[in-house]
């Protein structure tokens, strides 16, 4: 009655400070968006410039990739290096997926807790080994001793070595993430199955595996993404600066990432068409990676099991 009350909160120093902090944090978060914009922008600008000189159809559907040769021999069909990327990734996954999943099932379902406690951290550490280590090993030991030692006649730079090493590289990642997914399946599901008389094999393959499917798919796509983007192993081992559309793994192939790194080492001047090819290929690679990522998100959502 004599006391005035207000339902409107007047801004105090405290709440102004809060608002300022919130704004600052928002700005920090925006930086990530800015980064993406920058990536896309830097890639797109040169890409557009590139397509001013080379028709899109030639790029997307051409089957000859010789951008670094003299002008009249230049050819800008991207299919060979996309093919090379997929081919090498394919060999890698052929190695990594079966081995990785088997390892994951072992760790999640069969291994004794003590064994698991030792092996799991080792796997996670192995997933963090720099790729240059794998490349070194393949170049100095694997190709000359193992592959040639088995009598397989390969080029010095070949897809077989590169693919197998690539597989070894992504194997720890696939195994680790898949194992996480399978461990997350509640015991009750297993116990129920055992109670109904299922064998361990049946429980692992028919109960746990499908239940963890979304995580396993995520693991596979994660491995595939790493393989697609891998640069150093390919440069050192699959070597070719000549793109190849064949199917013989004993020959050398070129991947998009390797092309980018190998070309930019030659330090090509800004503005030339060779410079622009780095960006066009980079943009293509970026697009493929986004596609894989989107697929991963959608598949994970589709197969995700919600436990109680």
């Amino acid at each position, binding site marked *: 009655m004599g006391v005035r009350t207000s339902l409107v909160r007047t801004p105090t120093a405290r709440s102004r400070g809060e608002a300022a*902090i919130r704004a600052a944090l928002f700005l*920090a978060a925006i930086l*990530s968006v800015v980064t993406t914009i920058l990536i896309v922008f830097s890639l797109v600008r040169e890409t557009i410039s590139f397509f001013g000189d080379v028709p899109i159809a030639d790029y997307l559907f051409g089957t000859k990739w010789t951008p670094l040769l003299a002008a009249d021999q230049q050819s800008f069909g991207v299919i060979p290096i996309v093919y090379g990327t997929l081919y090498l990734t394919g060999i890698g996954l052929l190695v990594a997926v079966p081995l990785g999943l088997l390892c994951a099932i072992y760790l999640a379902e069969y291994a004794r807790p003590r064994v698991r406690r030792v092996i799991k951290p080792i796997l996670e550490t192995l997933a963090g080994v*720099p*790729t240059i280590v794998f490349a070194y090993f393949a170049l*100095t030991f694997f190709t000359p001793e193992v592959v040639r030692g088995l009598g397989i006649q390969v080029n010095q730079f070949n897809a077989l070595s590169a693919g197998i090493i690539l597989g070894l590289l992504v194997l720890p990642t696939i195994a680790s993430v898949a194992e996480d997914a399978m461990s997350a399946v509640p015991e009750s599901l297993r116990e129920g199955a055992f109670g109904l008389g299922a064998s361990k094999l049946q429980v692992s393959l028919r109960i746990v595996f499908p239940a963890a499917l979304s995580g396993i798919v995520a693991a596979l796509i994660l491995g595939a993404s790493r393989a697609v983007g891998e640069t150093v192993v390919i440069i*050192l081992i699959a070597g070719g600066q000549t793109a190849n559309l064949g199917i013989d793994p004993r020959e050398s192939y070129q991947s998009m990432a390797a092309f980018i790194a190998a070309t930019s080492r030659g330090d090509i001047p800004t503005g030339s068409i060779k410079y622009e090819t780095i960006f066009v290929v980079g943009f293509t690679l970026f697009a493929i990676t986004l596609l894989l990522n989107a697929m991963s998100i959608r598949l994970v959502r589709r197969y995700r099991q919600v436990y109680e």
Partner: protein
Amino acid sequence: MTGAQIAASARAQRSVLPEASGRDRFYSTLFRLAMYGALGLAFLGLGAILYDVAVSGAPRLSVDFLTKFPSRIIPANSGVQSALLGTLYLMLICAVLVVPLGIATAIYLEEYADRDRWYNRLVEVNIQNLAAVPSVVYGILGLAFVVRGPIGLGNVLLAGGITLSLLVLPVVIIVAREAIRAVPPSIREGSLALGATQWQTIWKQVLPGSIAGIATGIILALSRAIGETAPLLVIGAAASPRFNPDGLLADFTALPIQIFVWTQDPNREFVELAAAAILVLMIVLLLMNSVAIVLRNRYEQKW
């Protein structure tokens, strides 16, 4: 049947579960073999790699190796001082850039952002996409924007640091968010109920509670950053410099680049040096990983 007869017949049975058929047992054994085989192959392959590197490189490890520079005329006199210091400097620049930005973004996304707003969802999806982009593309970004283009630093130490920071920033954000999310809402609610502002709650309750997880994540992200070769190749790190970077705007190299250059040299001596340099890199990474594990074990909060 009497109770005794039932008990007798129960005792006679070996198990309550049905006997596995011969065929089931065959598949089980086969599967076990496959698993052990896979495990064996995987560890054989990965172990061979580490063994080969260790055996080739160990003989060349010495304090000299750490303090000398690469030599063209007497390969045996080469060392990795410039590369090692380059790597350490890069790690520091990364840390300085990534720690504040990463934590700030994570705090914003977890504590302040309204998930229903489109721009917040955009930021989230963005970060997930960025984490999946190959490192080579970050190299291109660095080349186009930081080395040449608007910022135009040239291929110098700072450019390398910025590029690597952009590379690991999404990972740091994701990890920091997980750590912050692990702090139970009850802690926050209690603090607010006692009259603290949101920021005070975060600064005094949430952050300290999640700092172990955040620190671990940062260390792991940094170890990823210094193991990367591709972005530095694209930017144009120097090959075998005989001097250390003397400032942010100096030419630089890093261990992965030095290893790369030496591995390609047909001269067997340089290849062995590459193995030794790999060992140096792995030791640095192992140290960082150990620090991360120790941090996690000692300071992890169990709620």
